């Protein structure tokens, strides 16, 4: 049994959705919808090299663990986590800029 309530820090809550998406559009979109962690992270790690350094890759996922795991993976791997967006049909899009 685990707590389902709000445990996220205020400061780490997803920022309010901007009217115009911040930053450039992704050059690669990885569809990991319906896949459970760690598969979205495995797909991201495998395919980030397909985008040029400095460009954006987006991962679409609906496993809630991805909301923690994608930013944490970026910190571990020194990639640049740009933002999280909520998808209209459920799940989230995570935007990552390849740094090396």
């Amino acid at each position, binding site marked *: 049994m685990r*707590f389902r309530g709000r445990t996220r820090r205020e400061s780490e809550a997803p920022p309010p959705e901007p009217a115009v998406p911040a930053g450039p559009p992704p050059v690669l979109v990885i569809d990991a919808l319906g896949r459970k962690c760690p598969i979205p992270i495995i797909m991201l790690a495998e395919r980030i090299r397909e985008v040029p350094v400095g460009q954006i890759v987006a991962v679409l996922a609906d496993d809630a*663990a991805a909301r923690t795991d994608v930013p944490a993976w970026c910190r*571990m791997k020194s990639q640049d986590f740009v933002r999280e967006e909520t998808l209209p049909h459920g799940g989230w899009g995570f935007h990552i800029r390849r740094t090396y």
Partner: protein
Amino acid sequence: MFGGHISARVPGTPSRVPVSVHGVADTDLAGAYFDAASTEPLHPAARAALLGALDGAWADPARLYGAARAARMQLDQARARVAAVLGARADEVAFTTSGTQAVHLALLGGARARRRTGRHLVVSAVEHSSVLHAASLHERDGGEVTVVGVDRGGRVDPAEFAAALRPDTALACLQSANHEVGTVQPVGEVAQACRAAGVPLLVDAAQTAGRADVPEGWSFLAASAHKWGGPPGVGVLVIRKGTRWRSPLPEDEREGRRVPGFENVPGAVAAAAALEAYRAEMATEGPRLSALVERVRERVPRDIPDVQVVGDPVRRLPHLVTFSCLYVEGEALLTELDRLGFAVSSGSSCTADTLRPSHVLEAMGVITHGNVRVSLPRGVRSADVDRLLAVLPDAVARLRRDAGVSPA
């Protein structure tokens, strides 16, 4: 029915059966138990006390005949012994049916007694589910809860916690140390802030009771006997003299009107015996376990690529270490380690019944998959820890290969 079964009840005494953990019969010689944070194997002192009390302290301690007075005396002695180890007065200690029940009673009863002051609670984001579930019940009943976040190491900032206290705060709650990542919380500083604000503090000491003293300044303390080698079904609720408390449950005269139901006297006697023995042993055993944990903390990230050791590296429990392996499913890793003879635990979502990642790892903002918690029981063999370190790199590599991950 209370006599004659003792010799038949202890076929697994250490002298006859090989053991990997003191006092625990272990027919599977390859097995190593590394899940002390879930429950510590029964301490031999608890086993002996339990068997003795089942025969000698079974009567109703609320009655007046001889057998009842004997049970009452044993119960009160157990209370005094537990109080002495926990730094409390005997009349401040009540035995509950679990650590969870102690938390529920302290939190809901503490909040209820201060209803006129306000209905606001402050808890940390990484509390045990018993605290968070009690807090959400309070919220559903019209109360308000502020959840204080933690840093990347899982530690509460005392200033942030203090800032969350308000004039209408009825109760604050902080664990002595985290059960999933082992980070020790700044209880002393938070207790000072609570005292200055006139807010009672509940300390959930389940992970440290019997291992270390709890800093002064708390009003309520909750603990669980099976974490220190006591029997299951015994918790401890301590309410400091002068602290206002009102039971959230129907009235009952047992345990000083604090805990309803017939007392588990044999359980309390065994819990007290285990606590005294365990606390005495931890003076030398604590540093030994801490050194073994340090070995794991050093070796795991060195020997395995893409691993993160989580939790505060210095302000930590002596016996517990948690790490996350990228690209590996927590459940697959647990199953593989079980096959190799290691009992460990995980906070990864696929191992939880709700399919939600651990709220602790989530609040810390660290990787939630591929998570392994190693918590060492007393008497653990150093060779078993080395054996885990020897097999872990291959086990992780195998699972990554199976998942189609290219070698790093």
